[in-house]
């Protein structure tokens, strides 16, 4: 049922309309003669206040407003993968075909292509009892993914009819269900309101690491499948590059990348690179596992607010099929600012720094949609949604509300640091301020995967970095001269960890992705060097002599050695190192014991 009202006020993205008695909160409406998409955010008597997802210039009082009777929903079904959407799930390619190079207003395009046929294989028979989340059949969506056509979460019953194997569009009915005294039809597409989490059976503990091939992340600040991470940093610190690296290389099944209020040229870069890149897990094109949502900073602000919800709803949909999904939101600050902007136009009472008082609860609600879950249905499947949100704090000051409220709900912090970025130490994740609450949980995985001493090495190297930061304070005051040799060795070792391990070039063909095995072998050599160094210093060798060893620059170049050659390189470096230290300490009596490892 639709209700038609009349525009009474326009102020930017916020429009008020009267004569809308009976319209519901969060209903989607069409505004004005141009039929712009909007959503009701306030109801007062018969006057509704609407946030409009398109530019409102030219709209005048008196123009019509029509309700659709549906909340803002995502259209879910085969065809999502490989598509790029705007914030309200309109395919950008379709907008391009229909509206030209510039985004015009009032273009309507469904999220899924209607004309496309999908090969459906049924998985149930008439008479089977099914509940929400059960698989009715499968469709090959991309080369790597079987798309499971599920019973919508709110339905259950007995299969009356099921479509035989064949080619169908998303509009075709594939099954008929009898239950609760009614007959219901199921198509390959379903709708879900984006602001409402999709239901699950229960939450599960998450302990499987999400391997990204980024050394500082996997080794020092690991994330798990189903975990949450925040990536705050001032501009130029490399947030977007880190997010892109994660989107390219994490070992999730599905990636949802939300470019929320970011740069158009960066989106173009993603669209250019991803189809050509290969997923390291499956060997297929990256686009085969990716859904992109691009609502750049100059696109309408209300659609920016909606974009993260659209993204996470799509992520939950694939999770319900039993997949591990990773969602990157770049940047959540732009989302928060969109909330602030709309709240300001609604003349709501502002909270801290002008943000609405509900900022904290909205952020928490969003991150709580992450997790490893036992999904709906009788199959016993599990799936996960991992959420990684960038934060762009004004002036790089982490004490601002968006960063602080995010840190209250996420369990991993990768804090990007301007000073490191200025020295071109990338990724500029500061090892002193970052943390991960999952380090203990993933230890089991590393130990089981040929990395027996992972935890020991990790703790030791982190200890060196911590010690370095304290020593550097002293050095700043009185110079390096006064430090004892052991401490100077700490400085040498810390330098080596930074240059040979923490720094990782996203643009180098080999270094851009570092497999877990290689990370461990690199760590092993670093630990070996330190133990040799400690023995040598104890035997009376100066730290400067240790730092001057030729083998050191070979360690610093480890990142560039191709993965398949690295095991060999590891053995060569280890031997060269043993010999170099033996030479260094020849004649120093206390030396001579070969270090463990």
């Amino acid at each position, binding site marked *: 049922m639709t209700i038609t009202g009349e525009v009474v006020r326009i102020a930017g993205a916020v429009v008020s309309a009267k004569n809308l008695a009976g319209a519901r909160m969060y209903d989607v409406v069409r505004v004005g003669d141009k039929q712009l998409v909007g959503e009701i955010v306030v109801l007062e008597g018969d006057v509704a206040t609407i946030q409009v997802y398109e530019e409102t210039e030219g709209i005048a009082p008196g123009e019509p407003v029509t309700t659709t009777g549906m909340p803002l929903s995502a259209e879910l079904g085969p065809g999502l993968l490989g598509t790029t959407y705007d914030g309200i799930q309109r395919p950008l390619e379709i907008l391009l075909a229909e509206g030209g*190079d510039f985004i015009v207003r009032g273009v309507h395009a469904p999220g899924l292509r209607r004309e496309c046929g999908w090969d459906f294989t049924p998985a149930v028979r008439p008479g089977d009892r099914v509940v929400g989340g059960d698989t009715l059949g499968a469709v090959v969506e991309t080369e790597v993914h079987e798309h499971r056509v599920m019973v919508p979460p709110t339905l259950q019953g007995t299969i009356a009819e099921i479509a035989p194997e064949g080619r169908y569009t998303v509009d075709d009915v594939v099954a008929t269900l009898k239950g609760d005294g009614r007959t219901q039809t199921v198509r390959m597409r379903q709708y879900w309101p984006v602001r409402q989490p999709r239901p699950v059976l229960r939450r599960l503990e998450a302990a499987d690491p999400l391997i990204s091939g980024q050394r500082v992340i996997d080794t020092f600040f690991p994330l798990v499948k189903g975990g949450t991470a925040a990536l705050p940093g001032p501009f130029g610190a490399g947030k977007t590059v880190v997010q892109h690296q994660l989107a390219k290389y994490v070992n999730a099944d599905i990636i949802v990348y939300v470019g929320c209020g970011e740069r158009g040229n960066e989106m173009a870069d993603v669209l250019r690179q991803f189809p050509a890149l290969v997923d390291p897990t499956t060997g297929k094109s990256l686009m085969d596992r990716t859904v992109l949502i691009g609502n750049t900073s*100059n696109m309408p602000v209300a659609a920016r607010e909606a974009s993260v919800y659209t993204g996470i709803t799509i992520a939950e949909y694939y999770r319900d099929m039993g997949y591990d999904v990773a969602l990157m939101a770049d940047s959540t600050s732009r989302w928060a600012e969109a909330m602030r902007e709309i709240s300001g136009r609604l003349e709501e009472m502002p909270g801290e720094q002008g943000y609405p008082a509900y900022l904290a609860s909205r952020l928490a609600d969003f991150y709580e949609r992450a997790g490893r879950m036992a999904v709906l249905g009788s199959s016993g499947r599990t799936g996960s949604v991992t959420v990684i949100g960038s934060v762009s704090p004004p002036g790089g000051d982490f004490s601002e509300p968006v960063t602080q409220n995010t840190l209250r709900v996420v369990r991993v912090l990768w804090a990007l640091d301007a000073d490191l970025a200025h020295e071109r130490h990338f990724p500029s994740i500061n090892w002193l301020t970052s943390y991960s609450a999952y380090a203990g949980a993933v230890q089991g995985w590393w130990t089981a995967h040929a990395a027996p001493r992972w935890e020991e090495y990790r703790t030791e190297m982190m200890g060196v970095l911590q010690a370095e930061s304290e020593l550097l304070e002293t050095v700043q005051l009185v110079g390096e001269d006064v430090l004892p040799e052991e401490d100077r060795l700490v400085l040498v070792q810390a330098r080596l960890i930074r240059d040979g391990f923490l720094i990782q070039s996203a643009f180098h063909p080999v270094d851009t992705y570092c497999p877990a095995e290689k990370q461990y072998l690199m760590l092993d050599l670093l630990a070996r060097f330190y133990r040799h160094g400690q023995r040598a210093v104890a035997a009376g060798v100066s730290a400067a002599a240790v730092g001057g060893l030729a083998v050191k620059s070979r360690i610093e*170049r480890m990142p560039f050695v191709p993965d398949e050659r690295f095991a060999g390189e590891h053995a060569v470096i280890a031997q060269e190192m043993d010999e170099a230290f033996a030479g260094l300490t020849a004649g120093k009596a206390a030396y001579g014991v070969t270090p463990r490892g």
Partner: protein
Amino acid sequence: MTRVTGPLITVAGVADVAYGEVVEITVPSGERRAGRVLESREDTAVVQVFGGTEAVDTLRTSVRFTGETMKIGVTEALLGRILSGTGEPIDGGPLIIPDAMREISGSPINPSARDFPRDSIETGISAIDGMNTLVRGQKLPIFSGSGLPHARLAAQIARQARVRGQAESFSVVFAAMGITYEEADFFIRNFRETGALEQAVVFVNHADDPVIERLITPQMALTVAEYLAFDLGYHVLVILTDMTNYCEALREVAAAREEVPGRRGYPGYMYTDLAAIYERAGRIKGREGSITQIPILTMPNDDITHPVPDLTGYITEGQIVFSRDLHRKGIYPPIDLLPSLSRLMQGGIGEGRTREDHAAVKDQLYAAYARGRRLRSLVAVVGEESLGDIDLLYLTFADRFEAEFLQQQENERRTFEETLDTAWQLLSMLPESELVRIEPALIEKYYPGEADG
């Protein structure tokens, strides 16, 4: 007319006024001014008045709503012309007959239609070409401070910029907002002397022009730039100066509307507003031209965390940051390389574009210069005696880097090769084992010491 506050007027007794509609205001003296609707209700409209609200009264001033949104006439004949901040010719030249009328607010480019910018521009300035390469379609602002030579650098870029191996139609759109007559004259004179004016469209809103007019100057300039680039195939360099003045104007209007202020009184939507300007740079698939933007802004009190540079940096693809210290040392251009960045550099350099060693050399220079700078501050406290030999080398490296690589003449144009060769000369001060950011094969090929043995 019921209310006048600062640059805004509220008009009652109107019907069906569109949001964004253009308004003509006639003050009692008969003078006419333009305005634009900021908020529209059933019977009232809030209008911002270009040209200021002086002499506006609530009794005899009349307001006419035109039913049109704000447009500018565009034509190739605009090249060589000087216009006011609201698009009126002020050079005494003939009337401009437009080929088309375009809405100045523009529409966002569909991200799917964008072509990723990869053609590196040779500006002839080592600090930019070598360390923060500019590419066609990029938006790269200059973060300056009052009294620093940003105008000279912008003029030098406009004069020298070229893409190698390509002789295409090139033009400059220059938009000045709230700058002094002296600074505006500097640019116009400079363009005239070098012949660039014939290929330029100049918009000037002087410091003493009505503040509110500044709000539409960049939109007008960019609408013209889009026409030149995407309709006529020009490669357009847009220089916007000074964005800080623009933001001040935005704040003034927000205050007059009694809006909830955000950081330092700037409105909460300033990010969106700036993005709508800066994002009008880029390239479009299947179209010839491009828009490259160099916005200039002065950081109040040299503070890079001030909202104007801060929000700008979050939107633009990098930034060129000026340093007062370097300026005091007499170094031109006084570019502080450590906080400077070009995000699109990576796609524009390397083999077949600039030179295969470019990326590695840049990384190594950054690492070495950063270390030298860190040691400099250390030496200030503990003296040079406590440094080791290698550290002393880095200290000298930083000094020579500033004197030989960064420093150059205002009319000096260096090629990419000259810039990179200078870089290798400097890097050869350091032993090969220090050059860990460069792969051995490249060191072998380019390290100058090798040839001499």
